């Protein structure tokens, strides 16, 4: 049985920390933050988001601002997707790669009303990303600074997310298109709201200044009208939807092309870091690809377990969880591109777990 680690005092806390305790959350150390892993139970929380609505505290994510005359060119140099000409009010997903095509991080760029770019990065990569970006400013006329501690972030997700927000009086977001953002004052709170998320469901992400975060939680009746959802369900939801998690389906050794995100690698851009390696990989075809699967067994296939077919090892498991929607374990694997079948098995501590590869979203 596991020994529960008591959080070290140095762990950082989001402004919603007290609310998580009140809601009975189980907390874990996530990238140096004391974060809620679950409240009612991962499977129940997962179902809430798939069938109605739930809210995630994702205030630990990093926010950088890029502005100045060359802000667009600078980001187009760093990122594989085309973001420099991103219109105001739009959000774009992009990997940020090394020269060899390995991924430094995957992130979302938001073009704010004032023309500046808001870059939202994974909590686990905040410092690494900032150093990477700062080290490449060079001759670009840009101002890059971090605002991670200035912003709290709530993600309201689920098929009833938009109607719930409307009923709470946030009509401003109702006509918002996918990957669009608006900035407005709501009940006296200055908000940035984008129609983005990480669950495969409809919904929004709401940025609020850290010192006003609890006011927002109160206005949204978080924990009452909208149940809290922890990081555990965040992981099973994104896996079921086929969304990559940095360090698993995309990493310094798994390129965006291998991860199935070739569409976010614009090799027709004249230059960006990683372009040569990624263009080559796109033209020749990746040697390995990330694929998602269902397990025909009750056991969960865990990260690092080998994937095999009759001929031997063909890959390795990257993520594993359980889908409460399908009522079976699900996962992802990095598989040799030469393997084109749909059936294989995972070696789970000497036991064979039959798996079937499927195109995500797995739950539909």
């Amino acid at each position, binding site marked *: *049985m*596991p020994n529960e680690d008591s959080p070290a005092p140095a762990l950082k806390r989001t402004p919603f920390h007290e609310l998580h305790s009140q809601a009975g959350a*189980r907390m874990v150390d996530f990238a140096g933050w004391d974060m809620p892993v679950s409240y009612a*139970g*991962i*499977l129940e929380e997962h179902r809430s988001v798939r069938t109605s609505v739930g809210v995630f505290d994702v205030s630990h994510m990093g926010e950088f601002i890029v502005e100045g005359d060359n802000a667009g060119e600078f980001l187009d140099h760093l990122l594989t997707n085309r973001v420099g000409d991103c219109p105001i009010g739009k959000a774009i997903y992009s990997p940020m790669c090394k020269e060899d095509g390995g991924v430094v991080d995957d992130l979302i760029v938001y073009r704010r009303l004032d023309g500046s770019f808001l870059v939202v990065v994974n909590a686990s990569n905040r410092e690494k990303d900032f150093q990477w970006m700062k080290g490449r400013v060079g001759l670009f006329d840009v101002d890059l600074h971090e605002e991670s501690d200035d912003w709290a972030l709530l993600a309201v997700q689920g098929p009833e997310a938009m109607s719930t927000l409307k009923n709470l009086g946030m009509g401003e977001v109702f006509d918002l298109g996918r990957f669009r953002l608006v900035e407005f004052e709501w009940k006296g709170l200055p908000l940035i709201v984008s129609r983005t998320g990480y669950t495969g469901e409809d919904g929004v992400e709401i940025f609020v200044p850290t010192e006003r975060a609890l006011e927002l939680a109160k206005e949204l009746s978080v924990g009452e009208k909208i149940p809290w959802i922890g990081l555990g369900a965040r992981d*099973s939801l994104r896996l079921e939807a086929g969304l990559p998690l940095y360090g698993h389906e995309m990493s310094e050794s798994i390129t965006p092309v291998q991860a199935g995100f070739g569409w976010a690698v614009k090799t027709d851009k004249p230059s960006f870091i990683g372009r040569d390696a990624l263009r080559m990989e796109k033209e020749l075809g990746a040697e390995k690809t990330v694929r998602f699967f269902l397990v025909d067994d009750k*056991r969960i296939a865990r990260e690092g377990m080998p994937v095999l077919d009759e001929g031997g090892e063909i890959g390795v498991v990257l993520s594993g969880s359980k889908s409460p929607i399908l009522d079976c374990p699900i996962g992802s694997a990095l598989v040799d591109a030469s393997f084109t079948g749909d059936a294989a098995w995972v070696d789970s501590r000497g036991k064979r777990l039959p798996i079937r590869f499927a195109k995500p979203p797995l739950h539909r």
Partner: protein
Amino acid sequence: MSNIPKDLKYTSDHEWVRLEDGVATVGITDHAQEALGDITFVELPAEGDEFETGDTFGVVESVKAASDIYLPVKGAVEAANSALEDSPEMLNSDPYGEGWLIRVRLDGEVDTSALLDPEAYAKLCEEG
């Protein structure tokens, strides 16, 4: 605070043991099920399987992790809770009742000094 019944013995691996009439019933504690989260799969031994004290006799899997479970006594399996195959969530909802794991016919004396009483176990949980 997790539930720690007074009439049971405990291990530092978060199993509980009920000793009566030469038979030990074994399960995982409320604290353990809470720490594991939603339990998705339980693997238990067959009737008649024999174990030494400290042997791994099964596996409890949750969404988060797979954990070995250890037998704190020596003996042969008299019964395994087969209902857990279809309803592993009973380990979450009723760890000391419907969520029991196995019953073992004891072979020899149980070294109770190696087991924790409820007070000592509560202290262990507090310390984490």
